[in-house]
């Protein structure tokens, strides 16, 4: 859209090169002017006059281009003179001139775009992971010692905060946990019945559903939902408080952030996750039972007899795991919240990280338990 009048004209006049600028030197025309200015073959060691009489509109971008041209010409050993600038544009030129010739800022380029950088980055990430594990362990220690201190003075623990956390993490999660485990129960029973029918063992659908829900899926699904739902909320809440300097304010008032923020969340989750697991187990079995009844015609008495066949240990294995998962989720959620520094952007990044880490650790611990229980042969 640059008007045709906006140009730079070269001419000679008594041994001096005249560059006459005309038209509108504005941010709108800057891209076009920039191209043309860079195209000019700059003279060396000449007397150059920039004639600005023809400029009828000028803004800072235009002023910058004029000054840059002057600067470039001088750098090549020319003597440069500006003339015929309208008086009304003088303050503008002065302002841009006083801003000085600042070298443009570099755009940060990720270092790992080279092979050496790539390898260095692998090392960096690995060392970072070790440092993280160390730091999380340290945080775990701080939380444990604070918990012990509070255990000696139980009144210090804010019951209100804990109950509020239990409502948010437990009661409010009940519908989604129930629905999901019910559906998983239905799915397992359906699929299981199909495969088992092939061997004529379809009545074992009950055992299959019961064992998988009680041992693994009930507690694992609950933990994963809570990691996504509550672990992320912990990080976001504490992280936002970090950004607002609320944590610092707490410290100056003499409140211990771990005691006030972490313990209610930790204890709340340790209490609610087993309860939610119980509910998840029930709903999963219910879904499986409903399928068994509608697809295989297994009635309630038979269902219960078969279910009691898979020792109560299946149930207890699931329940034993649940508080451990709760500790991991609460710990990671709070830890990442405290890692927030500076900007709101880091809240988002660490929230994602906290969910991924919590789910990862939950599954790792679950695998550990599997090995442990199979060694005990239960």
């Amino acid at each position, binding site marked *: 859209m640059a008007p045709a009048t906006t140009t730079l004209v070269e001419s000679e006049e008594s041994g001096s090169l005249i560059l006459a600028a005309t038209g509108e030197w504005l941010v709108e025309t*800057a891209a076009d002017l*920039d191209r043309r200015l860079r195209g000019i073959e700059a003279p060396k060691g000449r007397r150059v006059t920039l004639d600005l009489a023809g400029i009828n509109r000028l803004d800072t971008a235009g002023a910058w281009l004029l000054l*840059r041209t002057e600067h470039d010409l001088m750098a090549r050993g020319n003597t440069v003179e500006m003339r015929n600038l309208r008086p009304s544009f003088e303050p*503008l030129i002065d302002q841009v001139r006083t801003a000085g010739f600042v070298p443009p*800022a570099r755009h940060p380029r990720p270092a790992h775009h080279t092979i050496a950088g790539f390898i260095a980055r692998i090392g960096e990430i690995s060392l970072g992971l070790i440092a993280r594990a160390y730091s999380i362990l340290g945080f775990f220690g701080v939380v444990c010692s604070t918990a012990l201190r509070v255990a000696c003075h139980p009144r210090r623990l804010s019951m209100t905060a804990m109950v509020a956390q239990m409502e948010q993490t437990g009661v409010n999660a009940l519908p989604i946990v129930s629905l999901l485990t019910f559906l998983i129960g239905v799915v397992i029973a359906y699929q299981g019945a199909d495969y088992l029918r092939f061997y004529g063992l379809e009545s074992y659908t009950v055992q299959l559903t019961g064992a998988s829900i009680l041992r693994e899926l009930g507690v694992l699904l609950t933990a994963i939902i809570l990691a996504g739902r509550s672990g992320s909320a912990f990080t976001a809440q504490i992280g936002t408080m970090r950004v607002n300097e609320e944590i610092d304010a707490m410290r100056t008032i003499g409140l211990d952030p771990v005691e006030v923020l972490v313990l209610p969340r930790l204890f709340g989750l340790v209490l609610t996750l087993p309860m939610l697991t119980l509910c998840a187990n029930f709903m999963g079995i219910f879904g499986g039972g409903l399928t068994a009844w509608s697809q295989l015609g297994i009635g309630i008495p038979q269902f219960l007899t078969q279910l009691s066949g898979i020792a109560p240990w299946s149930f207890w294995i699931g329940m034993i795991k649940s508080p451990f998962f709760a500790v991991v989720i609460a710990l990671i959620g709070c830890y990442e919240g405290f890692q927030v520094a500076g900007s709101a952007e880091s809240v988002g990044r660490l929230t994602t990280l906290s969910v991924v880490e919590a789910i990862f650790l939950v599954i790792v611990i679950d695998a550990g338990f599997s090995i442990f229980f199979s060694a005990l042969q239960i």
Partner: protein
Amino acid sequence: MPDQSGEPIIRVQNLVNRFGNETVHDGLDLEVFRGEVLGVVGASGSGKSVLLRTIIGLNRPVAGHVEVFGRDILAISDTDQREIEKNWGVLFQDGALFSSLTVAENIEVPLKEYYDMPLRLMDEIAAFKIGIVGLPEGTGEKYPSQLSGGMRKRSGLARALALDPEIVFLDEPTAGLDPIAAGDFDILIRDLRGSLGLTVFMVTHDLDTLISICDRVAVLVDKKLRVGTLEQLMHDEHPWIQSYFHGPRGRAALLSEGEHLQK
């Protein structure tokens, strides 16, 4: 200098803003003329920022008429909206810089959005804007979280000025700055107004700013604006305005300005 005879560049008529049961503005009128610096003052919570947000179209009023560059902000097409946004710059209270971008990249955002420019030219423009607002060399490479509050404000101003707008809206530009930095900021605004012919709409608490750079002052009292020069408003009978200008801080600021003028 302000041209009060011409058409106003911003015109607000009969503005009503209400949140729940609380009425913030009730039949508020305002005209801002090309080239003037208008300071809006008022008690905390009197709705100064709401007024600013309404004029720039971020808040939809309950009733009233808002015109910028002669166009109705409340019933504007998207194309016209873009055209207008190209010609104004807004400095939010804490800079509102995009935290995932460096300062230089922040300044380049509007350039990228509106013009097809080579990267090198954008970098140069960002660099001299950083110089114009008085930030030290090397600031362009930093992220907003690495800057102090005052530097964030200056960076925000540099972004607001990226397209050489005709109007800049400033929300408490000197709040939270030390007196020297605040004074520098005032001088910066005054210089920019002088060289670029800016129209400045400024919400402020700072008496020194009002006295040193504002052509006219608008006081938000009783859900309406009282607009005038400092001189006129000092003789206003309204109790809030009286205590504002004639309280200890007001007197001190006026006194120091008087001394300044005598020198």
